[in-house]
């Protein structure tokens, strides 16, 4: 009996937490507290929510399924492949994808039940396996888009104009899982297994069959989540759902499901999910730094579980009056956690104000100009990427000069789905201009069109969206220009002939794959005696690039050049060449001058190619200010961009200029 009461208590505490979040964000986030935003939150939560629903019974049995995120990637690729390459009708392709999900789940189930593998290890294996097959099938490069509108409606449409189209699917699954876990004989069996699998077996429960059921269902549900994800983003890629498994597990555990099994509820999972999704959305709408989402989620998670455990120990056997106290103390501590979190936020804002001036927070130091003060939102592809960090300095400089409020935020790592969520939050918040370095053009364009329809000026930079989804594209250099410059550099350094290898970022990185395409094209057309021997991934990790370069030098002793086209990969490859003591291998590539300075000066990295990133950030903010005030409009052929002087406009493209080539002679002139 106490068990039930205790759970109800923690669920009430979660409701309190969610209400508190809503109360705080209603104050800090413009338009956060609106019906439209509420529906948006629902939409953002669906894919994650489906995984969390599927994981609840799995965790209640005392197991775990780490493979659900990778399963989404595999299903996305299978779906795209069936539809585009095998020309299946969309419904048949979707049905086959669901079957693939079932099969993947069944694989987990078989290895766990028939071969007695621990769920953690088995699904750790399929975590790599599913993602690996998805990458292998697409060679990392291929992606599928241009799905018919009727399919995209599932992820982007609104029923009756307001309700996101995927919401009914989610409700259906929520109801199904609720019935399964709480109103069926299966649910009892699942809980019994979680408490003690051996005991359940003796009680006549077919343990293996029940386990097989939950893992197979988990694969199936991940396939459904994958279809919705693809419809939501308009693109199917092998990196779909990366990292979703951990967030889904967090939601389940936050919802009071016992990680060791036995206890748990769908209702709790939904609450845990809401707490996470509302927090993420609220932070974005309030223009607080994205990193806070992870920090606060983990703090809340530990606090909730710890409080539950302490009570469990402290709770007297008899209950009654104490129970009320329990709830109160729970609420009190949770409130304290959240308040502490928001204090951090407030403190950080104060700290950031000097350089950023986030959002519409009134700051005393605002320049006394009569003109309107615009809020300009700028999004990098990934916040932690040193390349984009160096763009930010220029953006802040421009905002300061113009007296504009700059919001600089984006995903903390490469995740196409997150960009959509941030833009949605900015639309809700209401800003004058949005500038995005686009990761996934087909997916983001839908949201950008929505922003334009609401009268927000939309610019893209670094990488473009579909042309009708934005007003202007601040073009630093075309993929073609980069590819050609890199190929020209290779030809120059190698003296016109020889073998070279490419070290790229992640195999699935769209940018890099585009550059590689043009590098190859240029070599075929102009430098037939250059020979590209292989392409290796570095996952944007310096150390990985280092090991890859080491191995390449041994396997291909005649190789004359390593071309690294991800910022951390150039110093990684150069260090490997330095440590090998080889003088006949050179390094070139695309990276930041500061990162490569020692290697360029030592003559190991012959050259590094990049545009002036500070100027790029500067120009983006200048252009978006002008677009917001209406001076940058169709027909304008050039703009006066602050310290950059006159910048030409080509159609709807603001052109920064050619990429720079940094060599030993000029690298000291640049500091970024």
């Amino acid at each position, binding site marked *: 009996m106490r068990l039930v009461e205790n759970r109800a208590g923690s669920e009430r505490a979660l409701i309190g937490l969610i209400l508190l979040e809503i109360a705080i964000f209603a104050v800090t986030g413009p338009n956060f507290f609106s019906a439209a935003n509420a529906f948006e939150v629902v939409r953002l939560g669906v894919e994650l929510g489906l995984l969390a629903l599927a994981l609840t019974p799995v965790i209640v049995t005392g197991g775990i399924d780490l493979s659900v995120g990778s399963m989404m990637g595999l299903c996305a690729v299978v779906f795209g492949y069936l539809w585009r390459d095998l020309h299946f009708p969309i419904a048949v392709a979707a049905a086959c994808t669901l079957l693939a999900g079932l099969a993947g789940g069944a694989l987990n189930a078989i290895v766990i039940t028939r071969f*007695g593998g621990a769920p953690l290890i088995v699904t750790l294996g399929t975590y790599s396996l599913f993602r690996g097959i998805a990458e292998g099938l697409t060679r990392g490069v291929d992606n599928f888009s241009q799905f018919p509108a009727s399919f995209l409606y599932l992820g982007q449409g609104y029923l009756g104009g307001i309700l996101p189209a995927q919401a009914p699917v989610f409700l259906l699954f929520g109801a199904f899982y609720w019935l399964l876990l709480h109103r069926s004989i299966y649910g009892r069996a699942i809980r019994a297994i979680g408490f003690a699998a051996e005991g359940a077996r003796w009680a006549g429960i077919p343990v293996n069959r029940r386990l097989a059921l939950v893992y197979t269902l988990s694969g199936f549900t991940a396939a459904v989540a994958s279809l919705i994800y693809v419809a939501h983003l308009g693109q199917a890629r092998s990196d779909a759902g990366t990292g979703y498994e951990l967030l889904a597990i967090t939601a389940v555990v936050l919802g009071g499901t016992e990680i060791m099994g036995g206890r748990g509820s769908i209702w709790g999972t939904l609450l845990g999910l809401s707490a996470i999704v509302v927090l993420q959305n609220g932070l974005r709408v309030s223009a607080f730094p994205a990193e806070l989402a992870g920090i606060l989620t983990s703090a809340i998670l530990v606090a909730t579980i710890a409080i539950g455990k302490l009570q469990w120990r402290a709770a007297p056997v008899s209950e009654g009056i104490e129970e009320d106290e329990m709830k109160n103390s729970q609420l009190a501590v949770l409130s304290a956690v959240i308040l502490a979190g928001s204090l951090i936020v407030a403190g950080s804002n104060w700290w950031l104000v000097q350089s950023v001036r986030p959002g519409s927070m009134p700051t005393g130091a605002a320049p006394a100009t009569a003109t309107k003060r615009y809020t300009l939102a700028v999004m990098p592809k990934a916040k932690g990427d040193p390349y984009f960090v160096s763009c930010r300095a220029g953006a802040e400089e421009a905002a300061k000069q113009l007296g504009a409020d700059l919001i600089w935020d984006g995903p903390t790592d490469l995740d196409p789905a997150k960009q959509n969520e941030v833009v949605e939050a900015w639309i809700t918040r209401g800003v004058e201009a949005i500038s995005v370095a686009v990761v996934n053009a087909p997916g983001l364009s839908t949201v950008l069109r929505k922003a334009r329809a609401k009268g927000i000026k939309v610019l893209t930079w670094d990488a473009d969206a579909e042309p009708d989804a934005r007003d202007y594209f601040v073009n630093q250099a075309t993929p073609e220009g980069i590819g050609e410059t890199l190929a020209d550099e290779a030809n120059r350094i190698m003296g016109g002939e020889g073998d070279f290898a490419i070290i790229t970022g992640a195999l699935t990185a769209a940018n890099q794959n585009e550059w590689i395409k043009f590098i190859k094209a240029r070599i075929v057309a102009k430098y037939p005696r250059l020979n590209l021997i292989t392409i290796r991934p570095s996952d944007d990790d310096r150390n990985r690039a280092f090991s890859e370069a080491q191995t390449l030098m041994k396997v291909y002793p005649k190789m004359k050049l390593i071309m690294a086209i991800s910022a951390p990969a150039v110093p990684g490859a150069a260090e490997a060449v330095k440590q090998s003591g080889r003088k006949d291998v050179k390094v070139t590539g695309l990276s930041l001058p500061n990162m490569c300075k020692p290697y360029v000066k030592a003559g190991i990295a012959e050259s590094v190619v990049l545009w002036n990133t500070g100027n790029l950030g500067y120009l983006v903010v200048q252009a978006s200010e002008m677009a917001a005030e209406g001076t940058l409009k169709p027909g304008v052929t050039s703009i006066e961009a602050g310290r950059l002087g006159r910048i030409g406009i080509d159609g709807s493209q603001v052109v920064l200029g050619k990429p720079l080539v940094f060599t030993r002679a000029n690298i000291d002139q640049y500091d970024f």
Partner: protein
Amino acid sequence: MKSRAIAIGIFWAALLAVLAWRAPGFFEFANLRDIAVTNAPALIVAMGMTVVIIAGQIDVSVGSQFAVASVLAGTLAKAGVPLPLTALLTAFAGMLFGCLNGALVTALGVPSIVATLAAMAFWRELLRWYTQGAWVQGLPAGFQWMGLGQAQGEFAILTATVLLFAALVRAMRNLQAGRAVYAIGSQRESARLAGIPVNGISFGVFMLLGALTGLAALLDSVRFSEVQSSAGAGLELKAISAVVIGGTSITGGKGNLWGTLLGASVLAVIAPALTFLGINAFWEKAIQGGIILGAIVLERVTSQRRSK
């Protein structure tokens, strides 16, 4: 669980045989040395992870701990702190991270996977927020290779790894605390009734793993002249994979460090082996996952045959 290590050993021998046949250059001393030096830090983390998993716990936050410790080491060195003190402070910081995990698990009763899942996101995001992705650059010349020069530096890293490994093997086998780790991993309650300080030992294994992670971060950082702030991404999965491939039971109580050495060696060899064999990089993750699943299936098959 021995049979899993045997299954993996067979696979490994087969892979090495193929390499010897198709790409004998793989076995050149320079290549083996480079692979060893590159993977030594991950092995040190996996060693600590083995102890944690034998104790019936898990720690998925090591990658984030590793990143914070790396940046800390770089920042200290840049501030002019002498290297021995930097090393000490880095290991100490790692130990503190481990203590935090240990405290959440033992004092507050948070299951280790939940506590360390939270710690993983917490440290990673905090570091991202603090560094904003910037690397620690402009380190003093004496930082790389601890001022020893490349050859001696590499030798020092390998020596440190071997010594740590030997010490830990001995401790797990011969020391009271080592036996206690196995005891609490195989049956917590019995261990408690037998007079073993269960909470103290559990706390201790997290502390040990944290300190080893800090040390590994330092040994990894000194291989370069700059510190990247995104270090250690995916390290937790690599370490856990190495441990379980090596035959250690994920539920605790069974396993040993030799198995982990085997597991870490297999994982270390896959990527360079693919390049040597000219196999496309796109299949790398699939092969890694396949090995883990294959090991589980083989284990079952071999153990059934033996029991017949």
